[in-house]
């Protein structure tokens, strides 16, 4: 199965990369910036959707992991002038360690207690920046300079380069997560999520599986934080509030928990809806006190609507619609069903190709 599906996923990733590159050249430079913002969001949400959808653990603290990644990157770029790729890798590594530490504690907690513990992390960690303003720049944070490499020429827009870098990292993350999803580790996460006792009886090390899921999700958040640092050019505590952690979870839920394609849909909604609604509100000449609150209301309305119409998120809804058009087809699967038995490999492949192809946007 993996022998055939890995080259296929790689192929899909290349196609997606070409489409993103094409879009980034066709669209204006602000759309490039939005592509970069979406890629940042996708990177973080993909990790979270694996954690919550697959291993069944909830985290309200992934914004804090993004902060760790962001500050690590900023400090390395500012003080040691590291190349971004190196800073990105180290940011991922540092957050992986942080994720392991939190994961050890999290593996002992369930449901609301786990949510509470991670909430604490999300609220408290960004405040560390205030405690050592000399290092972290306090409230106004650290400015990160990021420029286009010389070989692209002086006229190459910075936002396009940011979009390329972020999308590349997001794609690689999605590719790796897709492989993990279909691997033994992904199956052990699903087994743990569905029934810990049964999983343990089958020889799965439940605690290790749960901790590993936390490490993976924290690493993704760390990479996203590193990308955010170079996209906005700033790491400040105001960027990593609890609102961010909740927005990440919202994106995962809206898109469809446990689905990588869903992570992409959710990110699109979270990034594009507020801008679009603001544009509509201002172009209709609403007073600023009304207009400025409409995006917040729209966000809530979208969340409620999606949950009512597509309880399994956008991806779940799309899958249902596709089934309507094409008939039941090969054994369709939703995120909460058991792993597909090896006799029907095509279903797994179908899903894999969905995930990555929808990653286009």
């Amino acid at each position, binding site marked *: 199965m993996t022998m055939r599906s890995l080259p296929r996923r790689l192929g899909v990733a290349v196609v997606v990369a070409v489409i993103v590159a094409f879009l980034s050249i066709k669209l204006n430079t602000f759309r490039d910036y939005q592509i970069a913002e979406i890629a940042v969001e996708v990177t973080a949400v993909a990790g979270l959707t694996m954690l919550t959808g697959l291993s069944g653990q909830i985290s309200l603290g992934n914004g804090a992991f993004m902060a760790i990644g962001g500050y690590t990157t900023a400090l390395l770029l500012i003080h040691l002038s590291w190349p971004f790729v190196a800073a990105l890798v180290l940011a991922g590594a540092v957050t992986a360690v942080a994720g392991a530490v939190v994961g050890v504690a999290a593996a002992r907690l369930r449901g609301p207690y786990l949510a509470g513990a991670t909430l604490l992390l999300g609220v408290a960690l960004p405040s560390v920046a205030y405690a050592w303003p000399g290092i972290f720049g306090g409230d106004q*944070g650290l400015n990160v*300079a990021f420029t286009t490499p010389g070989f692209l020429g002086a006229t190459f827009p910075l936002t396009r380069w940011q979009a390329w870098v972020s999308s590349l990292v997001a794609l690689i993350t999605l590719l790796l997560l897709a492989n993990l999803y279909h691997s033994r580790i992904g199956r052990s996460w699903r087994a743990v999520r569905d029934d810990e006792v049964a999983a343990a009886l089958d020889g799965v090390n439940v605690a290790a599986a749960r901790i590993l899921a936390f490490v993976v999700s924290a690493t993704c958040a760390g990479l996203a934080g590193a990308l955010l640092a170079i996209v*906005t050019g700033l790491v400040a505590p105001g*960027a990593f509030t609890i609102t961010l952690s909740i927005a990440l979870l919202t994106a995962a839920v809206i898109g469809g928990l446990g689905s990588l394609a869903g992570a992409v849909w959710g990110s699109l909604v979270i990034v594009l809806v507020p801008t679009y609604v603001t544009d509509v509100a*201002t172009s209709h000449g609403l007073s600023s006190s009304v207009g*400025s609150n409409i995006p*917040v209301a729209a966000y809530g309305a979208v969340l409620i609507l999606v949950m009512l119409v597509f309880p399994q998120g956008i991806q779940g809804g799309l899958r249902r619609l596709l089934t309507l058009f094409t008939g039941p087809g090969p054994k369709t699967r939703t995120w909460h069903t058991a792993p597909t038995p090896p006799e029907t490999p095509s279903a797994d492949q179908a899903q894999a190709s969905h995930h990555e192809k*929808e990653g*286009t946007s």
Partner: protein
Amino acid sequence: MKRPNRLRWQAAAIVTVAALAVAACSSSSSSSSSSSPSSGSSSAALTASAPGITSTTITIGSHQPLTGPAAPGYDEIAPASAAYFAYVNAHGGVYGRKIVYKYLNDAYDPTTTASVVRQLVLQDNVYAIFNGLGTPTHLAVVQFLNSEKVPDVFVASGCECWNDPTTYPETFGWQLDYVREGKILGQYVKQHFAGKKVAYFYQDDEFGMDGVKGLDDEIPASMVVSKQSYVDTNVNVAPQVAALRASGAQVVISFSIPAFTALLKLNSLKLGFSPQLVVSNVGSDPITLSGLLESFAKQGGATVNGNALTNGIITDDYLPSAGDTSNSWVALFTKVRNEYDAKAPLDGNMFYGMAAAYTFVQAMLKAGRNPTRADLVSAVEGGLPQGPMISPFAYSSSDHAGATGAFIGVIKNGVEVQQGPILTTDTSASGAITTYTGSEQQAPASGIPSP
């Protein structure tokens, strides 16, 4: 055979939908950008001389806290500026062009600021960013604006950091900077409260720290018994107020935004602690403050009289007091407000927004009939008349700071009353504070500056 086909079909459908969605999102932008660089040949003299300038319009942008912790009070500023621009547009505009003012909400969050300012510059092609509000927020975009060579005029923050012509040639301050303000308040406290115990309460960022720097230039360290800071994301300031009370301070100088001035006052009240409050201009508008005090107290289940609580607060101002009805600027801005922004309260924030807009119109008139972006920068560097300001601007090619002086005011019955003369100074520790002897300017009868 059948299965791969279906797969391919599904994938193609998804890719198409995604591409269409992205294309749909971009359609609004492409239509707006095609309309902005208009030919301009129809009206002979006026041309599309710069991004954001057409033969009929000047489009400028801003980031403002319309929701979030800094919104109370500050959300009136941009609508007031827009009202003044509407007044100018209705009376002939700037060389016949109408000013289109697009201000977006950043909720006082630097990441959102980074995003909305890129939208204004990269997508909406604004000519300049005008009056972007907030120190931490504007710091998130100042590098971007300067690298894109977008004029960044009259930042709505008194951070000394905007005055850095070498690093930020496009950026200009406008209001009195916090160092000058701290010095003027500090001198007053030193002279009028000699021998008393003084404490500071300040926002933990450039705003508060610049203010403290100015205060420390004037107030001897031996007088200061405590320095407490807060962050604007944490509304629990009870520990800081308890520390101020424990220090035995008789005078508390506060560099705070309005919401935190109100929290300081209410927490002090709860502890039976009533020092003389000295509040920086930013956090002392009497009407905003009184409204906040009443609504915060109501949330806590208590009833207070806002005006009674603000009575006696010492502050400073670089614009005429909004309560001074005999002032020609107050008369003008009240008239504009009644016509274009009638629901807004007649307070210092409204006055601030209009005064900044007035300065912008002055600068645009000076920049010429068909200005480039560089023309606006050199117009401001050439110096501007002080207009509604009570002291001259510092603008020159080597100085991008705005107002240079203020008077001390005391709040009485919800109105700020001037005490003593207008004082001007510079930002250096040794720079003297002198009484300003020049006269204030009167508002033009037309309400619009002359070119």
